[in-house]
């Protein structure tokens, strides 16, 4: 069951959140954020932009952290605004948040960061970015002690949130 779990949640029309942690915490926190963002947009007739939504997420996580019953979650937040374009933010369970060109969480992430660092350049196209992620997954399949067969991939752009083909063992057959 776990191998088909979708950890990339659509938080609003232009915001995507990838969450690492306990299933219960993931559901609770992501729903809390997304429903609050929805309430904001219904109340006011306009949406919060990515920066503000991420700030809101971080502030809530930081407050709950200091109330003694924290969510133990690592997040990646991806958003698109007309003004700023695409943005990626990483947040960890201690509510430290920073905007980065590429980021990763988890054991697989430890391995991926150096690959991302090597192949990343500004103004990558969606296809190029997908290929770089495939390289990361290839190494995870080869070198990681855990079995992580499937990787879901989603993008967020001016056309909203879209799902790309899942990367699995089959993606590397014949290569």
């Amino acid at each position: 069951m776990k191998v088909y779990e979708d950890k990339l949640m659509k938080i609003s029309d232009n915001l995507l959140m990838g969450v690492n942690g306990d299933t219960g915490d993931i559901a609770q926190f992501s729903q809390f954020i997304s429903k609050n963002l929805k309430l904001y947009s219904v109340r006011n007739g306009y949406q919060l932009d990515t920066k503000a939504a991420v700030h809101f997420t971080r502030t809530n996580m930081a407050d709950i952290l200091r109330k003694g019953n924290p969510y133990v979650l690592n997040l990646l937040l991806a958003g698109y605004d007309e003004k700023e374009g695409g943005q990626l933010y990483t947040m960890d369970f201690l509510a430290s948040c920073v905007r980065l060109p590429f980021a990763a969480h988890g054991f697989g992430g430890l391995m991926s960061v150096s690959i991302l660092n090597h192949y990343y350049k500004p103004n990558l196209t969606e296809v190029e970015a997908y290929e770089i992620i495939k390289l990361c997954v290839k190494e995870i399949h080869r070198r990681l002690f855990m079995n992580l067969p499937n990787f879901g991939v989603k993008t967020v752009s001016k056309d909203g949130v879209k799902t790309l083909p899942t990367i699995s063992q089959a993606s590397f057959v014949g290569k």
Partner: protein
Amino acid sequence: MARRYDTRTTIFSPEGRLYQVEYAMEAISHAGTSLGILATDGILLAAERRNTNKLLDEVFFSEKIYKLNDDMVCSVAGITSDANVLTNELRLIAQRYLLQYGESIPCEQLVSWLCDVKQAYTQYGGKRPFGVSILYMGWDKHYGYQLYQSDPSGNYGGWKATCIGNNSAAAVSSLKQEYKENETTLAEAQALAIKVLSKTLDMTKLTPEKVEMATLTRKNDKTVIRILTSTEVEKLIANFEKSEAEAEAAKKQAPKS
């Protein structure tokens, strides 16, 4: 007869009115005038200063105009102590939003929040309503320059030009005639404000001590809030008096030809 239904603030009269709210608005109509005008390139608030006693120590720069956050300013009319409580609350609301979302609160949200607070005092708690009407001017990225007015009932509205306080009805009708939507620049609005204020003030002559004016504009992606110096106000008054004198002279000339 109405007396029986107005000692408790939170009940309706048989005619369906909330007397305490109406009495609060009555109190405001005796207070110093405040007016606001929305121009194409900015907004201004102008207010009548009532405390012109020479013995008053100049502690506060402005009597009735308050900065709420980097993008909003308000002007009040009514009971000063009530106004202080409300402006403090407005500043708190604005900062709480900044803490939550990392950006300035959009104008209407701030007004709306405070009006919900004001409304609560008309419905429960047994306390009297605030005897203050507020004019707000601000800028946000959603709707640009905005001017709002709120009153003790908790109602608010967006305006292109409006006035609160003493003689406000006369001022509003004057503004209605002279204000040109989408054509009035900030400079023209300043001249118009002085003209309207001179009509509503009790005293015969306008002087810089009796008027305070603040403008809000945008420059280089940042909001610029300025309270005019007395020299600038004096210049505006002088220009106004000159144009009045010219109009008088023109009137005298006309019948002859």
